[in-house]
């Protein structure tokens, strides 16, 4: 293992690690916390819960979001639910079982200790959200309801119709609002973080652009927390908000934070398919729908009859056929690949042949329309609004779409990156989902990191900072960072080319989707690298940005994010090329079983690939964090 990577996994049995670790952490006295400043960038479920919890502890918290309010963060769009091991269903659930499901679901590419801790804190999250007023679904008894989700055989998912993320994110937003009103947290909205400031090897601040005035600002703190989400928008079309981006993470990467497993990107199986060339985003249909919806394609290639005219015996319920044990509830990577496989073979439906059916006919017949409406009403309405098709009467058409990034900034057990004082939480880090994320575990991880893990572990770092007075922003490091940001923006504005930022984004997304999407191979990835380099050069010579630098300028914002996407895309492809195995969402066609399932190589690739920036045009340097499995034995993942 690289000497640079110390994952700081505590000693002791798995189930005791977190308790023992908390007991061993150094603390900051309550009276000293007010002398310490913490910057939190991004305020979705992870960032807002962290900011609120840190402010409650007494730290001075400064929060930065690019939207007009932290209530807009894309956690708000999380639909299906949040997992916890309450075992309210008496179906033999436990922390260990959730841990095992996640480790297996992630295809044995996540760190055992982190995953176990995520499961361990899950129940406290539900307690917290209920106390904050989240109206989770309830039984007639008044007690909380649960449902099941993909990749597991227990019902541990808490939900609020198809808007669980909205309700949880608003609860965290409200908790943060309370701290803002108490003067313990300060909100800086409509700010883009453009650089990280490192002083004497420690993260000490950020450079932001005020998106209204264009002003470049310096902000300092004793520690910086990135809760900036994932970068699935790099594929252009994705289920993410259109402004989600990877710029803050890339700024950290360029300043020395390692990027881990960047190629581990989740392509979600149940998105509304691409409908036309103008489309700016794809809308997710929650995985929870696979509880009652059956996925199928016609048994005959190119069958263009309406779904309702295709008889039962003419339908291929391919997930039930191929994976009888889990059926329609196989994990996302498996379901996505299976859909792509059927469509590639010519069995896909719809005008483009790039979609499969998700059918509720049988569920409506057996449970009644009202029961289905109660579970999925908002999702059915959403589907109808977008497609004009009524899913109570006709099956939905779905296709995989870029959704989530398991990869992200490398963090140790304390959620600290390789830069002392810089933390990454929620989707922005890499830690809990390995090569594939299970449904309803993202809200869980974001909330766990934000409410219960980071607020504890950050104290250990800050304990020796109490004598460090407020960090001045006139240090040369701030000056240099500000200058670099200014130069980059000026350079972008000065290109004055002919093509819009969006047109570049579309082309980049297309390259990645084609060569580094659900299936990858060496030849394609090498080609992708070439094409990305060419397009990047073209971008820096031909991008066209109108309006000024000192005003609200969405085109400049886009161009800056796309500039970072080029560097990130290179990193993604380099990582995908390096990993000569298939695992989870990373499917290398050269490495598959006879049945077309991913073939892992535990001898050579049972590690986290953490990439270090070595210079603008230089190859990133690979560091390996070997994964050791003490409590589970990596096996060939089977959902048959």
């Amino acid at each position: 293992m690289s000497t640079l990577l110390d994952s700081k996994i505590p000693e002791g049995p798995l189930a005791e690690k977190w308790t023992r670790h908390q007991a061993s952490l150094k603390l900051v006295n309550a009276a000293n916390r007010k002398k310490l400043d913490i910057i939190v960038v991004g305020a979705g479920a992870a960032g807002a819960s962290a900011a609120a919890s840190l402010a409650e502890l007494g730290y001075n918290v400064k929060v930065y979001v690019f939207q007009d309010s932290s209530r807009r963060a894309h956690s708000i769009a999380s639909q299906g639910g949040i997992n916890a091991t309450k075992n309210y269903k008496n179906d033999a659930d436990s922390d260990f079982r959730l841990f095992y499901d996640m480790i297996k679901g992630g295809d044995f590419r996540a760190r055992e200790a982190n995953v176990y801790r995520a499961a361990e804190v899950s129940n406290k999250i539900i307690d917290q959200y209920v106390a904050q007023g989240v109206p989770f679904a309830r039984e007639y008894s008044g007690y909380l309801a649960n449902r099941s989700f993909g990749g597991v055989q227990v019902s541990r998912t808490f939900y609020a119709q198809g808007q669980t993320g909205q309700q949880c994110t608003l609860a965290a937003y409200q908790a943060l609002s309370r701290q803002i009103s108490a003067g313990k947290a300060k909100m800086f909205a409509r700010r883009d973080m453009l650089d990280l400031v490192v002083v004497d090897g420690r993260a000490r601040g950020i450079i932001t652009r005020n998106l209204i005035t264009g002003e470049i600002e310096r902000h300092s703190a004793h520690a910086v927390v990135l809760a900036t989400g994932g970068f699935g928008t790099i594929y252009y079309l994705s289920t993410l908000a259109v402004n989600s981006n990877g710029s803050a993470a890339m700024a950290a990467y360029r300043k020395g934070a390692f990027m881990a497993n960047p190629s581990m990107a989740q392509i979600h199986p149940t998105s509304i398919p691409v409908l036309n060339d103008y489309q700016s985003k794809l809308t997710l249909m929650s995985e929870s729908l696979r509880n009652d919806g059956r996925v199928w394609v016609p048994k005959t290639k190119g069958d263009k009859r309406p779904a309702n005219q295709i008889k039962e015996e003419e339908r291929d319920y391919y997930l039930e056929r191929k994976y009888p044990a889990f059926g329609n509830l196989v994990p996302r990577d498996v379901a996505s690949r299976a859909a792509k496989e059927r469509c590639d073979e010519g069995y896909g439906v719809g005008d483009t042949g790039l979609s499969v059916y998700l059918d509720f006919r049988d569920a409506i017949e057996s449970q009644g329309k009202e029961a289905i409406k109660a579970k999925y009403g908002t999702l059915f309405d959403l589907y109808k609004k977008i497609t004009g098709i009524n899913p109570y009467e006709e099956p939905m058409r779905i296709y995989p779409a870029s959704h989530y990034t398991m990869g992200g900034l490398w963090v140790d057990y304390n959620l600290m990156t390789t830069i002392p004082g810089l933390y990454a939480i929620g989707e922005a880090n890499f830690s809990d989902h390995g090569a594939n994320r299970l449904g309803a575990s993202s809200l869980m991880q974001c909330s766990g990191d934000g409410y219960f893990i980071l607020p504890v572990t950050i104290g250990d770092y800050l304990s020796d900072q109490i004598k460090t007075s407020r960090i001045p922003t006139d240090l040369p490091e701030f000056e240099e960072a500000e200058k670099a940001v200014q130069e980059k923006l000026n350079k972008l504005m000065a290109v004055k080319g002919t093509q819009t930022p969006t047109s570049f984004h579309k082309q980049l997304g297309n390259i990645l989707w084609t060569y580094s999407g659900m299936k990858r191979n060496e030849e394609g990835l090498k080609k992708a690298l070439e094409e990305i380099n060419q397009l990047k050069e073209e971008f820096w010579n031909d991008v066209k940005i109108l309006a000024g630098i000192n005003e609200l300028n969405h085109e400049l914002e886009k161009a800056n994010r796309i500039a970072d996407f080029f560097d990130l895309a290179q990193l993604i492809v380099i990582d995908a090329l390096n990993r000569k195995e298939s695992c989870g969402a990373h499917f290398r066609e050269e490495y598959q079983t006879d049945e077309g399932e991913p073939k892992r190589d535990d001898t050579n690739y049972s590690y986290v690939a953490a990439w270090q920036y070595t210079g603008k045009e230089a190859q990133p340097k690979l560091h390996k964090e070997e994964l050791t499995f003490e409590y589970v034995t990596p096996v060939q993942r089977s959902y048959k």
Partner: protein
Amino acid sequence: MNHCSNLEDMKLTLKIWRQKNKEAKGKFVTYKLDGVSQEMTFLEMLDFLNEKLIKEDADPVAFDSDCREGICGMCGLYINGRPNGPLTGVTTCQLNMGAFKDGETITVEPWRSKAFPVIKDLVVDRSSFDELMQAGGYISVNTGAAPEANSIPVKKENADRAFEAGICIGCGTCVAACKNASAMLFVSAKISQLALLPQGQVEARERVQTMIRKMDELGFGNCSNTGACEIECPKEIKLTNIARLNREFYKAL
């Protein structure tokens, strides 16, 4: 990605509010736009316009949007004199161009309200909504202080109604629709959600008073029960929430 439509493309005339910044005086600017597909969403039509404007060296129209699936509340435009356009129950990003006809003139304005000043073109400042939430739109429970989630049963009906109020996306449609620019529907949704749950009872009295006081302070108008907010709300939040707010308010006096 095949363009899989056999629908005719449309020619539109767009009258769009352009305003350089907060201080500048704005005006309507007319654009002719050909080749609009009925399959575009309204915002994709504006994207399409902007791509064209950039090619013609004209400043693109600034407008806010993020999730583009009707949940973040970031978008929101006044279209042909109605918030979010001619359909009900949709946000601006969910509005489809199929709702318009070939040759139509479409007028696009930002939200108009004293409490939502225009920042640029169609972008407005809604931070007053955040300030309203900061005035009590929460339950004061610190992280770690919560009891076991199932220790307090909540009547299913109340949990469902709390959810129905809690789905407000904070887009500002209600204020934009109201002739008084009142924020009553927005505030009442949060008041209702929390008042319907046992967890929110402890602070109910104080919450309703501080939030209403704040609403007046921020320059929102009063409610005269015209109900435009309910009709236009993209999440179909009910007017009964305002009745509940009033009841809560009188209880608190």
